[in-house]
């Protein structure tokens, strides 16, 4: 589906005519990310992160495939082959640093993408399916990143794998058999490393598949925008190409500048020194911490320190950690406010900036800190607010809040009055 004024693809020469008849791939691209996709004219730079996330996925697949050519998923040599890549493979150090930091930057842009969605309620009808698929992508990313971090077989790889697979042991009765089955043994070892490598190679392609569905679902209603007012006329839109390809190109430049600064000058800043020590099942690190992008959820896991009636503390933590993400699936039905954008929702906006954002910052900080006071108590308060925010505050706010007046249309929001706002009245946009 598209808007009636969407430009139609016209093959111009023999080759494109031939292709359009036999396999209309150029037509698909033209309609998906070319001039054939009308996009709201008022998107801010917060709308850059979808394209950047797609770029990260490609970057991870390309660097990852090259790394896999030189890596051996065997517990005896995995750490050594990683060092072989760093020292002897031509540009191997760059590939590995780009891949390790690429994972971090993938999460940075995806977190910004998700929180953009929270603020502008991008999950609301008619975009529920885009949101649901997005949460699926996020879960797949977490699984992929976790298994990838195990592959160098350093101390944090090993102990991280032990802690995370140990979570399954918290499930009553069937937990421990499941844990042994997942690991292929009683502790992480060669069997676990092999299957993690296999799945780490597979899952990015599954993610790519879900990304295609995510973009497909996006093209049914079209992109959301900062006003949250739906597209009414052609004047509200510009073609994706060249307007947003140009804007995304600039965003990509900024992204690459930051990314390459990390890769070439601070490549180990986001990693943990212990992962440069070879895995040793007999020596437990002083503080086992996952990668930074898991810290908020790790803090929720560790916030449950005592049994809650008949539910053991560990099981409670595991349930809460998974629930913390699963709750995102229900957002489209929890937040019933008819207004999408946080710009026109005074109460919602306060809870977002002074509730959710500080809470995430506290959870993030406490997740990376040792399990000591005051971090445990801070993460308990933040965990309480986290669940209250999504499950109690959001539904209640949407029923008691009085939204501010919305602009009549996107064009009115941009130009003040709808009358002068006909696209191409005086100038023809370059295509």
């Amino acid at each position: 589906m598209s808007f009636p004024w969407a430009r139609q693809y016209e093959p111009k020469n023999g080759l494109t005519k031939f292709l359009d008849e036999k396999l209309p791939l150029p037509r698909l691209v033209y309609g998906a990310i070319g001039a054939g996709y009308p996009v709201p004219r008022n998107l801010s730079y917060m709308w850059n992160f979808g394209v950047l996330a797609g770029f990260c996925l490609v970057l991870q697949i390309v660097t990852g495939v090259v790394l896999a050519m030189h890596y051996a998923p065997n517990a005896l040599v995995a750490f050594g082959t990683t060092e072989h890549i760093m020292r002897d493979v031509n540009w191997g150090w760059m590939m590995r640093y780009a891949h390790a930091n690429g994972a971090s930057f993938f999460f940075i842009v995806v977190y910004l993408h998700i929180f953009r969605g929270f603020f502008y309620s991008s999950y609301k009808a008619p975009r529920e399916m885009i949101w649901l698929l997005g949460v699926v992508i996020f879960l797949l990313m977490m699984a992929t990143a976790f298994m990838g971090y195990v592959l160098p077989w350093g101390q944090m790889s090993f102990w991280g794998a032990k802690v995370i697979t140990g979570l399954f042991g918290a499930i009553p009765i069937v937990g421990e058999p499941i844990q042994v089955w997942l690991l292929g043994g009683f502790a992480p070892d060669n069997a676990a490393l092999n299957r993690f490598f296999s799945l780490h190679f597979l899952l990015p392609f599954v993610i790519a598949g879900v990304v295609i569905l995510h973009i497909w679902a996006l093209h049914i209603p079209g992109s959301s925008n900062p006003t949250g007012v739906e597209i009414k006329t052609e004047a509200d839109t510009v073609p994706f190409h060249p307007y947003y390809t140009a804007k995304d190109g600039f965003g990509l430049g900024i992204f690459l500048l930051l990314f390459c600064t990390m890769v070439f000058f601070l490549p180990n800043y986001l990693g943990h020194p212990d992962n440069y020590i070879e895995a040793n099942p007999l020596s437990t690190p002083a503080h086992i911490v996952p990668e930074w992008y898991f810290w908020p959820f790790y803090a929720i896991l560790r916030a449950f320190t005592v049994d809650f009636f008949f539910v053991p503390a560990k099981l409670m933590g595991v349930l809460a950690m998974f629930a913390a993400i699963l709750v995102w699936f229900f957002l489209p039905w929890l937040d019933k406010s008819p207004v999408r954008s946080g710009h026109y929702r005074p109460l919602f906006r306060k809870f977002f900036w002074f509730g959710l954002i500080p809470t995430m910052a506290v959870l993030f900080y406490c997740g990376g800190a040792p399990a000591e006071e005051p971090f445990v108590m801070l993460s308990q308060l933040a965990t309480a607010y986290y669940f209250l925010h999504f499950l109690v505050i959001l539904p209640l706010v949407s029923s008691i809040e009085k939204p501010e007046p919305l602009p009549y249309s996107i064009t009115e929001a941009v130009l003040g009055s709808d009358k002068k706002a006909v696209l191409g009245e005086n100038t023809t946009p370059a295509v």
Partner: protein
Amino acid sequence: MIRLFGILAGLFFTVAVMWSFATGAFVAATEGLGEETAEHAFHKYPKDLHLASDGVFGTFDKAQLQRGYQVYKEVCAACHSMKFVAIRDLADLGYNEAQLKAEAASWQVPGIDPSTGEATMRPGLPTDYFPSPYPNTVAAAAANNNAIPPDLSLMAKARHDGSAYVYSLLTGYQAQPAELLKEFPASKTPTGLHYNPYFPNLNLAMAPPLTANGQVTYAPGNPDPTIDQMAQDVAAFLTWTAEPTLDKRKQTGWPVLGFLLFATILAFFAKKQIWSAVKPSRKD
């Protein structure tokens, strides 16, 4: 219906975590926030160390790396392996091919006797990796009071602020402070261990390796081999062993960033020009 269920689920998690909070707060109020430990009170962060390779423009000081290698060879290598570094890698330190071959031959590496097939030792070749001083970890543990000397290849990356950590540890041995023993009488350094405030648990199995100025004789033209100088040199050397590609990485980074900056500026003006036709002014 979903919202009612959601509110109940939200309250369930909130009550459960506040139950943990209340229990923790009650314990903290009645028993305090846990006892202070000697490790927490007396552990020190590494001293400042300035190396030629520091910073975004820094490059390795090859003369210093050669001195550090000499310290490793004559002191550290008695107990510590460096298994990810090959002798050929020393070419980065400025040795020529003949020097590399001579250097390699000065190491004895495990080999196989070509006439009998029995395990033997032979002089090293540049393609060999640095040999381990012990045949296996059991031997390493047996010779060192059950503490296996860690491999040094990656030491400078395997600790927070690793280069400074190596330097601080080597120069940080001291008698246990009297205040520590007064406050924590149970934390007296056990026999066979050595007090060092830069080590996480304060007591280290490694005896002070650098004990006297002039312990290693540097070639003429180098600084005096004081303990401090030798510790700095070996810290510099281990910074190189941890990442021999460090110089190349930074030297590659600058043209990459320069190109990206140029491309980003172009992209900015391209974007500006394309958008000038529709003049969006964001009000939100």
